[in-house]
């Protein structure tokens, strides 16, 4: 049982505030992804949980034990690094056995665990090799096997797939998900790749400028972004935003069209809609098509609505060419509204 509780953790490097008062609870056996652009503090947070970095303030609890004063070896964690960190002077077998030998386990148990995890990561035939004789993907497998062999309470992964090529990344992603679900460990996984985050996570914590902006299931983060930042960061192509002016109680005027919206006290809001949540129909937003990009099943249209850039994904059976004007109607219940000053969802 290893629930991770992070209480009021902050970190500054000199005058630079890398993390602002983070509170986060990761449930036992949960797969939590920390997602954010580079420099948002996600790796710093992971390293504080690992004990490789000292928090400026706050507490870290793992499995009911306060660990923030303990060194990494006392925290019951295992970590997979972005550049694999496979020991070059040891064979694959000795790499996987490294932590087990530090625990002074009997040789038979070491053999059993190394062989089992190597089998699991499909590197059983590489045990006698050195890291210099392995490909990037194989090194990554060794690094994961080494972490799994520790049978830790928590596995921490720092962008483990970002150094692999696209095809290998896809393959490893699916494999990791299976292996980690089976191992029943709590996992924290840092990435800047939203597709990776979506496909792996039980919950995603979206981070921006040293804060956790939203921590929720992938679908929740996608459908109901807590802030404008989350909406614009997640989704490809990103969410469309248009200014909305108050037009009576609960009525908002967006690019000349009146929509039902929230009953807010402000006069100006931001109207947001995902490109795939648009239908062609009467009485919608008048969009002038500028660019047509067929993607197979769908067409990506880059348009202008009231002078602002606007993207729509429509069915590829639609016959459309640049210069056409379409009427785009938001699917019911899919429009979102944000406060233009705070960026918070309304």
């Amino acid at each position: 049982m290893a629930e991770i509780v992070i209480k009021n953790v902050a970190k500054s490097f000199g005058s630079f505030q890398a993390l602002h008062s983070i509170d986060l609870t990761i449930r036992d056996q949960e797969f939590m992804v920390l997602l954010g652009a580079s420099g948002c503090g996600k790796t710093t947070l992971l390293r504080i949980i690992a004990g490789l970095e000292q928090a400026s303030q706050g507490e870290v609890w793992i499995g009911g034990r306060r660990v923030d004063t303990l060194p990494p070896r006392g925290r019951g964690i295992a970590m997979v690094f972005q550049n694999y960190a496979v020991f070059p002077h040891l064979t694959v077998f000795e790499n996987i056995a490294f932590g087990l030998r530090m625990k002074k386990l009997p040789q038979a148990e070491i053999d059993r665990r190394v062989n089992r995890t190597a089998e699991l990561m499909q590197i059983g035939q590489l045990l006698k090799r050195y890291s210099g004789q392995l490909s990037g993907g194989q090194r990554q497998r060794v690094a994961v096997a080494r972490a799994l062999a520790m049978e830790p309470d928590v596995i921490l992964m720092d962008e483990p797939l970002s150094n692999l090529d696209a095809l290998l990344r896809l393959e490893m992603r699916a494999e990791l998900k299976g292996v980690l679900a089976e191992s029943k460990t709590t996992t924290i996984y840092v990435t800047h790749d939203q597709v990776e985050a979506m496909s792996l996570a039980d919950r995603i914590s979206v981070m921006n400028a040293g804060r956790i902006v939203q921590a929720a299931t992938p679908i929740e983060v996608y459908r109901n972004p807590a802030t404008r930042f989350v909406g614009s960061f997640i989704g490809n192509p990103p969410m469309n935003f248009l200014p909305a002016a108050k037009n009576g109680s609960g009525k908002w005027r967006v690019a000349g069209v009146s929509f039902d919206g929230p009953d807010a006290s402000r006069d100006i809001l931001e109207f947001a809609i995902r490109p795939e949540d648009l239908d062609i129909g009467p009485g919608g937003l008048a969009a002038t098509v500028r660019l047509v990009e067929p993607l197979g099943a769908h067409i990506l249209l880059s348009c202008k609505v009231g002078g602002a850039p606007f993207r729509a994904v429509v069915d590829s059976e639609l016959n459309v060419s640049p210069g056409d004007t379409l009427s785009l109607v938001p699917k019911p219940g899919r429009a979102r509204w944000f406060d233009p000053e705070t960026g918070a969802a309304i």
Partner: protein
Amino acid sequence: MTAVAGTDTARRVEVRSAGRFLFGAAVVVLCVWVLVPIYLLFVNTLSSPQEVSGFPKTGIPSFDFGSISFFLNFAGVLDALLNSIIVAVLTMILSIGIGAPAGYALSRFDFPGKEAFRLLVVMTRAFPLPLLALPLAVLFIRTGLDDTQIGLAIVHTVLALPFAVLITFSLFSGIPVELEEAAWTLGCNRWQAFRKVVLPLVLPGIVASAVFAFIISWNEVFAAAVLTIHNRTLTAFLVQNLNVSPLHLKFAGGAALVIPALIFIFAVRRYLFAMWGIANR
């Protein structure tokens, strides 16, 4: 159009071949500069004493060990040789013992004054030894370190230390810090991670920088000549006897000094290049 381009190309080829000739000539001059004295040293060492002082020269060694045996049997040579080895080994131990931790600290930790420290390490070589020799000799006589092997080894350590620090700094910087961090997460404390992961990876380089420290001490003559009287090292001994000894003794002594240096430096040349790579930054 094509004609112009043609002459242009021709000229470029000409310039390039001239450049190549200059480069080749420089290489030849440098090689001759270094190799001819060494060759003469060998020829004369491996010739009989009569041949060394005789004329005309053949230029080919006769592989007569007369000069060498004379040198080895010369009074005081073996003692001086032993002193040289002891002082060099002490220098090696001291400079790695002090230099490697400094190199590790420079590569792994950020501390105030780090850049100044790096500069100071190199600056120790900026003070000419003759300038320091007199005060040092006085200090050594006061503390009883004069004419001892450890006293000389301390001075040689000062000379070797900048290189030890720079070489080990570049060695440790070449080991990704993630390897150490991985070891920490796998159950090691700092020392265990260093011993099980970093040390095996840097050991060849550490040996190389130790050898380099050995050579610096082995070849050092000024401090040795000033600070020792009875416990002379080979270099100091030969300098002392330079005017009064026969030619073949000088050649044999020279060879005895040069050969270990040549062999060791050749063995560790790869690591010395690494050091200059860092030092030039």
